[in-house]
């Protein structure tokens, strides 16, 4: 690979959105106004171009698994080494960059219409685009960074942008509260993440990816670094991933984050930022695979979250919330994939998921825009004829999410389930059950929104969205249809006699993800034909079954759901109230903390402030005393100088006595 070219394109990828954001922020309110979107679209488009060029560089090279280009040295970290501003470019980076920049571009384009009321820019239009640009900048920094310091920088910066954008409608108390919740919950995860990075530095004395991975692998092999230390590092890093990627138990912020504008939900809380944890673990494979414990925990948390979130999605009425729980569940799949050493399947799922989930959120946004900001499925329905484009694209997105055969989600999800079965049948069955639920809740949402009797809230002029919104939907639906084919190849005797998993994408990623495939603990079971392809037929059948049940319950006989809910009132309530997790958190964590906060406040007010008052009373008293002596007069100052000199002379001559 050509280092100079890599450097140039990396800088383009990073600086495009940043400059767009700065221009939008500085000139938006005064000069650009309603045209602010242009600078950000242009910046992100440059970024897409740079990402494509990087991809060509990487795919054009053979043998060179990764390149690290140092932009400049930041500050020294020890005698010879520096904390550098450096980029690491390899297959994983370029795939992530393509996904991030491409989806970002579509979302920014979509926002041009979405952030308008009747053609007029909504309040905070410029601010919105400035934040979006800043987010893209932060996210590509996270992905491109060549050491843990830059990773952390990007990690915190995307968190900040997420906070700002969830609270975009800050005059709505629920939005402000959701932003605060997201920030605080993420702090818990990031605290662990920060500690993990400190521990890495303490263990290997560097934060550079190459050095850290080499030294940890070598250190574990030679016994210099204890496995328990590596486990601690991996779990602390995973703690960050749990927060950022909304896994159990830190998932609570993501459903509330839907208070942000829909494009934000699509970009940050579905396609890109929340997958940062998956990216981080794939990147740090060399650390994670050294610890069997950590990998087991990753897999278990992932599987549990996938199932747990899917059950909550079954009974929600808010379209975006259903999608939010679905995102949590799909992220759970990705962690399950990582935990069972199938990192390439996890990254594959990340890639397909970005397309169809962004599509679904943007589609939901299109509905919401049309319904006058109402997103509750009980208040509208049967929009099939009102919004034909949205209907068609949403159908494709839903099929992809359900894992309907031949759609994008099918290929990647199936690979993860397959890898899980290889590791443990229990994990595999969880994956399959979740797949059934996924198909059901997805089409429950879809049928209720688009089929049946047309029902529109009072006073709303329902309309199909404008072309700025429809175009991204169409492009994304193409992705949801075909993106999966990057990960399969054609071979006789395979699924449906044509398709064989593990395609071009996997081969491209393999050099980067070698730690997973070469891990010492992996025992690959020789799979029979049935194990290889039977699972694909099974999961296809489950997906279709889920869709049929949803059709039966919500189109064919709409009374059925109520009957079922009445038959199992407790179960329904528990699910509808999200297992009362928020309430439990409030009662067991927030309230005690608040009480101890009050106690601390009282201590601060009466004890600490008292001490401070006493302590500051000394200099104050001294000052008063000195003021009495000096009265601010010149003579006093002069005298203090001379006396000071005299004291110094006396003390020093006393000290100098031999």
């Amino acid at each position: 690979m050509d280092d100079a070219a890599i450097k140039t394109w990396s800088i383009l990828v990073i600086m495009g959105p940043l400059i767009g954001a700065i221009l939008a922020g500085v000139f938006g309110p005064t000069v650009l106004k309603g045209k602010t979107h242009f600078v950000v679209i242009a910046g992100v488009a440059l970024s897409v171009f740079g990402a494509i060029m990087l991809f060509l560089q990487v795919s054009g090279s053979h043998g060179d698994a990764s390149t690290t280009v140092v932009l400049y040295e930041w500050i020294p970290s020890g005698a010879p080494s520096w904390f550098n501003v450096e980029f690491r470019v390899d297959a994983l980076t370029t795939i992530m960059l393509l996904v991030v920049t491409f989806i970002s571009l579509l979302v920014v384009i979509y926002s041009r219409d979405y952030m308008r009321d009747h053609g007029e820019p909504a309040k905070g239009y410029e601010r919105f685009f400035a934040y979006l640009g800043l987010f893209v900048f932060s996210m590509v920094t996270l992905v491109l960074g060549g050491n843990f310091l830059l990773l952390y920088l990007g990690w915190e910066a995307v968190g900040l942008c997420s906070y700002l954008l969830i609270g975009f409608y800050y005059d709505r108390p629920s939005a402000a509260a959701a932003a605060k919740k997201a920030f605080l919950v993420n702090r818990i995860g990031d605290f662990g993440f920060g500690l993990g990075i400190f521990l890495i530095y303490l263990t290997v004395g560097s934060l550079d990816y190459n050095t850290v991975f080499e030294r940890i692998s070598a250190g574990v092999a030679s016994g210099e670094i204890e496995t328990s230390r590596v486990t601690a590092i991996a779990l602390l890093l995973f703690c960050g991933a749990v927060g950022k990627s909304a896994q159990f138990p830190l998932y609570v912020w993501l459903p509330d984050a839907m208070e942000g504008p829909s494009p934000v939900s699509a970009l940050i809380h579905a396609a890109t930022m929340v997958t940062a944890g998956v990216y981080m673990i794939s990147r740090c494979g060399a650390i994670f695979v050294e610890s069997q414990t950590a990998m087991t925990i990753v897999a278990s948390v992932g599987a549990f979250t996938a199932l747990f979130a899917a059950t909550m999605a079954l009974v929600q009425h808010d379209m975006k919330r259903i999608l939010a729980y679905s995102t949590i569940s799909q992220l759970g799949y990705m962690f399950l994939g990582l935990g069972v050493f199938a990192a390439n399947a996890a990254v594959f799922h990340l890639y397909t998921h970005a397309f169809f989930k962004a599509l679904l959120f943007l589609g939901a946004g299109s509905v919401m825009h049309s319904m006058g900001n109402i997103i509750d499925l009980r208040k509208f329905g049967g929009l099939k004829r009102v919004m034909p484009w949205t209907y068609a694209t949403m159908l494709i997105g839903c099929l992809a999410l359900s894992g309907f055969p031949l759609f994008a989600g099918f290929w990647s999800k199936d690979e993860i389930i397959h890898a899980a079965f290889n590791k443990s049948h229990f994990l595999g069955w969880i994956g399959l059950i979740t797949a059934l639920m996924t198909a059901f809740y997805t089409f429950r949402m879809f049928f209720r929104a688009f089929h049946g009797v047309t029902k529109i809230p009072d006073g709303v002029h329902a309309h199909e969205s404008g072309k700025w919104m429809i175009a991204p939907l169409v492009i994304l639906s193409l992705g949801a249809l075909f993106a999966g084919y990057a990960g399969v190849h054609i071979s006789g005797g395979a699924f449906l006699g044509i398709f064989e998993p593990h395609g071009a994408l996997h081969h491209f990623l393999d050099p980067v993800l070698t730690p997973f495939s070469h891990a010492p603990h992996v025992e690959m079971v020789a799979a029979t034909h049935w194990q290889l392809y039977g699972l694909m037929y099974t999961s296809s059948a489950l997906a279709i079954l889920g869709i049929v049940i949803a059709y039966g319950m919500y189109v064919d006989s709409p009374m059925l759901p109520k009957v079922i809910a009445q038959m199992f009132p407790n179960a329904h309530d528990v699910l509808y109230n999200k297992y009362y997790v928020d309430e439990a958190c409030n009662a067991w964590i927030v309230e005690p903390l608040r009480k101890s906060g009050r106690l601390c406040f009282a201590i601060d007010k009466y004890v600490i402030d008292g001490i401070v008052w006493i302590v500051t009373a000394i200099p104050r008293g001294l000052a008063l005393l000195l003021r009495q002596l000096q009265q601010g007069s010149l003579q006093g100052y002069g005298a203090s100088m001379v006396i000071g000199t005299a004291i110094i002379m006396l003390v020093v001559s006393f000290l100098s006595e031999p």
Partner: protein
Amino acid sequence: MTIADYATQLSPELALIVGACIAFLTGVSRNIATRSLAAPIAFTAVLAAIAATAIYGRPIDTQLPGLQFTTLTQYIRWITLLTALPLILVNWKLPVDGERGEFFGLLLTSVAGLTLTAAANDLIVLFLAIELVSVPTYILVALSRTDTRASEASVKYFFLGALSAAIFAYGLSFLYGAAGTTLLISDTAPNLADSFASIQGMTLYGTIGLLLAFAGLSFKIGAVPFHAYVPDVYEGAASPVTGLLGFLPKLAGFVAIIKLLTICNWNVPDAIFWLIWTVAALTMTVGNVLALLQTNVKRMLAYSSVAHSGYMLIGLLVGPAIGEGPMHDGIAAMLFYVFVYGLMNLGAFAVLSALSNHGEDCETLRDLSGLIRRTPALAIAMVICVFSLMGFPPTAGFLGKVYIFSSAVSVDPANTFHQPLIILAVIGVINSAIAAAYYLRIVSACVMGDSKSEQEPRGGAYVRLALGACSLAMILLFIMPSLLANPARSATTSLTESGTTTLAGAQTGGQAGAQTGGQAGAQTGGPPL
């Protein structure tokens, strides 16, 4: 040595002095328009001096009598001149029209004095250069506004400055008495560096001389117990001039101390180490604690200026570690910090001068209240500068503190002063925390206060330009600190001959100190005294 050598080597100073003369001349014109040309003239002179530094300013081996041009000289020239640009911009509209000629002439003279201090290689030149910095500042304070407070501040500053100059000169006379020469460093002639090359050479008179000189210079840097004038003078002068006071005399004082410690080859009696240690600890603590009590922002920043001198003294105490860079090299860290401090301090005072309350400078926290709602740009610049003063990322002030404290803790553990330096660094960190309390009050007033006060923006485009430059520099130097850290690292190469000596490092034992001293003597080829 021809006149041409002088002219090329001293071309930056010549540019400044010529500019000063022209500015003085405009001051006698009858035409008001001509007289107000002084500011652009001063700005041009500084630009010319920068050009001259870039073209002719190289460290050279040959010495002019009394002057020596080293990497340190170059560094000080660059940072002084680069700070002088925003300094002039902030002061652009300052005195009444009639007095601008004198004002900017004096300002340029003071700047020239500072660059000469960095070139001084003789006690007499050093003394004169320091006075060249100081005397104009006394007048600048008085000229800065037509107010009895300014006059009072100026008179106080002048008398106390004269007293400190007397103490300084007294100290220098002891040094001369001890060594029999006024030359600091030389390859051929008898000089102070050779005679103090070893602990044995450091007689009682030499020690007394250093002590008194340090005491005299402590006034310039505002160290305890010579800090009492700082709040009064800072409050009395107009804000732009206060920004100047925080940089020019302070840097001159530090440069002079570096020069004096260099002639001892950073190898001083324990007593002086402990003296500087105590002064540093006291300066930080007293400055910050007294600042806590202030509601007047100018007095608050004055005490903060005292405290910052304390941080910089830590770097001085660690001493140079040649080629190691500011993470380990205390002097490089200090040189990094002093430039950053100059800019952030100037920025903060520029904000105060850009706002006025019924024609008066905005001074109290109440005046700043709710600034972000009235002029968001000024408020953001203020927040950046104050965060930088506080040492908060992502600003250069953060890196400055990191450098200073890390240089203190990175001293060789075998060193006798390893422990005290770590304690000093801890005191410094605690002080940074204390300081956050009053800096955050400024931030909270700007950002969260209600906007009831009624000042109107003032100062116009020039102040805003300078302010923008200062706050952008704070961010830029955080992102790319090597822009400044690398020059700072190379600036210390001229400070010792032996590479690894530190003020503390030389103290690992009398023997080691004597050895390094001996090496230095051998390398310079001077006769051991």
